């Protein structure tokens, strides 16, 4: 597995985790839990943006990693 694929996989995982946190935040009735989930979702969203930036950088540096 190339670095590019690993990166893409990491992004997909984080994205899935963020979405899961968002559903949890919406589903739970506990205010404290809701806030925690919301914060986690925000953290994941931040991570997602950073990872996407990194992926872009990798693709620029090593075009052969770009996904077909």
């Amino acid at each position, binding site marked *: 597995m190339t670095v590019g*694929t690993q990166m893409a*996989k990491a992004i997909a*995982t984080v*994205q899935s985790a963020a979405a*899961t946190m*968002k*559903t949890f935040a*919406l589903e739970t009735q506990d205010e404290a839990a809701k806030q925690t989930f919301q914060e986690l979702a925000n953290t994941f969203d931040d991570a997602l943006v950073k990872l996407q930036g990194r992926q872009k950088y990798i693709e620029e540096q090593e075009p052969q990693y770009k996904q077909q």
Partner: protein
Amino acid sequence: MQLWMQVLIRSLSLFILIIFLARILGKRNIARVPPYRFIIYHVLAIIAALISVNVIPNLVNGLIAIGVWVIFSIAVDYLSMKSKWFHDLIHGKETVLIKHGKIMEENLQKERLTGEELLRELRYKDAFNLADVEFAVLENTGDINVFLKSDKKPVTPHDLSIKVAPQAEPQTVILDGNILNEPLASLGLNREWLCIQLENMGVSLDNVFLGQVDSSGDLYLDLFDDAIELPQPKVKEMVYANIEKSQANLMTFALETEDKEAKAMYTKNAEKLKELMEKLEPYLLR
């Protein structure tokens, strides 16, 4: 007949008559009527009061006076509807007080308005700064309406070029523990739907003071028992989060599978969902 009997009978019958006449005279905001209507209302009120306490002993004379004032008031309404000339004659024309950001002093003088009064009225409209006002007009009801300069107006989604979902007015479907059928029907919903929603939230109908359904079908409830925390309707956000999750899952599958065909299928569908998300975002999240 004794005097007190007379007063009693007159008052009762006038009470009914006046309520009926008030309906005929139409729906008007009492605080915002043109001066002539203000006078009509007061004359009617005074005549009615005088008849009621027997100051006008002749009932017929009093009723004639009331009739004239009511009929002429309605006649004036109809004529002003039919004729623009008559309308302007009765209601007067509105006066422009500020045009292109400049105060029209001669119009102020014509309306016998002082600068302080103008400024006070502008402040009512949240225009503390005269520089923000492009146009202001004195309506024939005495209100001053203000049109702000385009860069001082409140920002709308249109200004920010944000797409937002269209929304119709919410309908009140439960009031004081009673289901209102007509608003429910106008949304294309029925009692069964409402009962299922209440059941899902774990609330009995008797406990609901007020329930509203917005145009996207979310039910908002206010309960008599304020200690109960209700889950806020978040159906749309939920749908979006679920789509987001599915999209991320498809991406993972596409990366993990060895099968070329499956990979292509997963990638294609992930992209489809991504497009869908972009399209749905304004409708589900804003």
